[in-house]
């Protein structure tokens, strides 16, 4: 188990290295105008040259990358070129907001999807058709459209929820819940739609297997068969979907954070990319890759726990 973990971590670090190298190289080729972006339209060539020297933009790619990498391995991701804020603190300030939305949406959608999936697979009939229909609708409606509908109806018309903004949990737990309710609901809608469908198919598939027939023939109640055995076998497929959705959410929440003016990683990613704030862009990339690696690791571990066969392989 330990070797399995170490191998996964090793692969993750390698992945992190490869992705950051590629990203840094790509950014290098579009870094000509950054000093001009910082200094504005009136800047003289001398000012631009000065700023380029200050930022190290006059250095060759290898020097710049090694500089960055040297800092990154010691946990120092540098400072934003535009506001001198340390990248690590910029990320740490914004991470709680983004992770609250993403993890909140994922947990709620996992529970809802499991319930709907089981109901659809076992009862079939109208529930099944309703779940299918919901899946179709969820797939067809992007989360930002759902978000706008939610804001218009529940925030602007009914005035139940705030239309924008984020209240930290420590400030006021009740307002915190109100402030994240709509963004999470907007994300959950699409997530549930996809995951419920996966749960349903996996459960239907497992219920047809021989071992289920054997279990039934030994006199186990249907409830026991489904919740003790079928779900356990059907879970890996659904978990994989959830982990993929998490990765998708890291991107999808960017738009949601913009619509709700949430101070998450999303607006930071958008702003730093459009400005060419390379240290911040790199910070966002590192954060995203680490999240993806972590989630995959957790999913592998849970799958191993659910299904001993995976551990062997």
């Amino acid at each position, binding site marked *: 188990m330990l070797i399995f973990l170490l191998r996964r971590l090793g692969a993750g670090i390698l992945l992190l290295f490869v992705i950051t190298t590629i990203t840094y190289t790509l950014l290098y080729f579009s870094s000509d105008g950054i000093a001009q*972006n*910082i200094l504005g*339209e009136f800047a003289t060539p001398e000012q631009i040259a000065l700023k380029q020297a200050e930022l190290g933009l006059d250095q060759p790619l290898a020097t710049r990358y090694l500089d960055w990498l040297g800092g990154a391995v010691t946990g120092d991701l540098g400072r934003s070129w535009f*506001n001198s*804020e340390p990248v690590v603190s910029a990320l740490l300030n914004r991470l709680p907001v983004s992770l609250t939305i993403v993890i909140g949406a994922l947990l709620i959608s996992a529970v809802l999807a499991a319930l709907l999936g089981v109901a659809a697979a076992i009862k079939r009939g109208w529930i099944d058709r309703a779940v299918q229909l919901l899946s179709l609708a969820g797939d067809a409606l992007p989360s930002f459209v759902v978000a706008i509908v939610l804001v218009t109806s529940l925030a602007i018309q009914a*005035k139940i929820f705030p239309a924008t*903004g984020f209240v930290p949990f420590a400030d006021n737990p009740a307002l915190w819940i109100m402030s994240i309710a709509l963004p999470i609901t907007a994300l959950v809608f699409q997530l549930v739609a996809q995951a419920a469908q996966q749960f349903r198919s996996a459960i239907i598939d497992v219920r047809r297997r021989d071992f289920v027939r054997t279990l039934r023939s030994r006199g186990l109640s249907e409830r026991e068969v489904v919740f003790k055995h079928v779900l356990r076998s059907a879970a890996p497929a659904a978990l994989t979907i959830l982990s993929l959705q998490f990765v998708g959410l890291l991107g999808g929440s960017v738009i949601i954070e913009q619509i709700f003016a949430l101070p998450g990683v999303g607006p930071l990613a958008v702003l730093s990319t*459009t400005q060419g704030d390379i240290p911040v862009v790199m910070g966002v990339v590192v954060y995203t890759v680490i999240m993806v690696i972590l989630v995959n690791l957790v999913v592998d571990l849970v799958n191993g726990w659910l299904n001993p066969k995976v551990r062997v392989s």
Partner: protein
Amino acid sequence: MKLRSRAALAAMLTAGALVLTGCGAGGGPAGGGDTAGPTGGTLSIGSLVDVTSFDPAASHVGHYMQYYQPVYDTLILREPNGDLSPMLATDWEYDDTQTELTLTLRDDVTFTDGTKFDAAAVKANIDHFKVANGPQASTAASIEGVRVEDADTAIIDLSAPDPGILLYLAASAGFMGSPAALETEGIISTPVGSGPYVLDTAATVTGATYTYTKNPDYWNPDLQKFDKIEVKPMQDVTARVNALVSGQINAALLDAKTAPQGTGAGLNEITSPVDWQGLFFFDRAGAQSEPLGDVRVRQAINYAIDRQTLLDSLLLGNGEVTSQITGKASAGYVEDLDDYYDFDPKKAKSLLADAGYPDGFDLTLPVNSADVIINAAIVQQLADVGINATQVVIPSTDYRNEIFTGKYSLGYYGIFQGDPWVAINHHIGPNAAFNPLKYEDETSAALIARVQAGDDDAAKELTEYITEEAWFAPFYRVNQLYFFDDKITVENQLQQAVPSIYNYAPAQ
């Protein structure tokens, strides 16, 4: 729409006149609007941008002003109508050569850390501003240094006459921070100024809400119309309109598509033309694209553009067509030039034929990836008179820098309509960034020299000259659509993307 923008303009002018008369009679410290009236409550505004650093040397103009004005006073205050009034400097005077600017300073101002404001503080700030190389550093390019004459008198030495310097001292270059805090790390997140408000760091969430509370020792309580000010960065226009319509904020800038939602919710609207949009002819010498070196070709393109249709279809009429790059408030504005080029494809074709291009010609048009629709319209209208434009799409983040390299002979852009000297430094003069091929001729050089010496007639002549010579093909002035609720009153700020913070007041 036309009527409404006229009404808004009339209101703006009346308000400006009121301020003017107020100043002339009293001569006291300026107040950016009414000084009487109710005070108190909270002002909450949504902003298109997020503040990057509270270091005054890192400050920017336009949308960013609202983050700095609560905490930093400027040396000079720019009134809503554009007039300059005393703020930290009570008086200013040039010498005969226009290169020595003497500022008389207030002697009763203290920064919020207890440091006294004096001439040495002015010197420390301007020195810091010049070396910190912030986004507005070039506005202090003509400043050679500051001399401390005595505690209340500072002399700014200029390398050459700079008609823009007083404006700059009313903006970024004029923000005064405590000299004790300027070179410290802390000023990035915690501003230390002498402004009407202080940043409440406990109630501030970076990237979401910046909360300002009254500065208890402020020297001019007239500028403290609210107990609290919140500025909320909301880059997304959907977030702004939702926050505004649901009452979370009192005021924000919307756009042509979201404006009907604002109007429908019964909000008040200020429209003011801040930018002009149109084609820039960079290659007026015809070095890269020979036809553009001929004034008749540039005029032909001006006649080929159907400005009104573009305005109505792309901006839903939120603007006014024009053939000049100068705004109505500028000393260089010439009313007759607004309709100098009408839409006349026949005339365009005959001008092209006169210039020796009866069958048109080919040119390359760089296209900002954020502006593909208008560029498609431009290509179509050019094609209608026989000009075949090949589009080269450039990612919007690189577009400006790409056209600055001088690779392209023309390009579409939207740009701020400043005062004559600001516009010259920005897109007319030989050193302007938006004149990448550094084009100038004898007439323009002579007129620019006269503008630099402070001659307003020369500014008008320059506008006439570059309009007739078709240095640009301006399409229209674009209205900024600023919306606010009934709890506050707002006065427009001339030539600024959003109103100055002093222009907001609680409603009666």
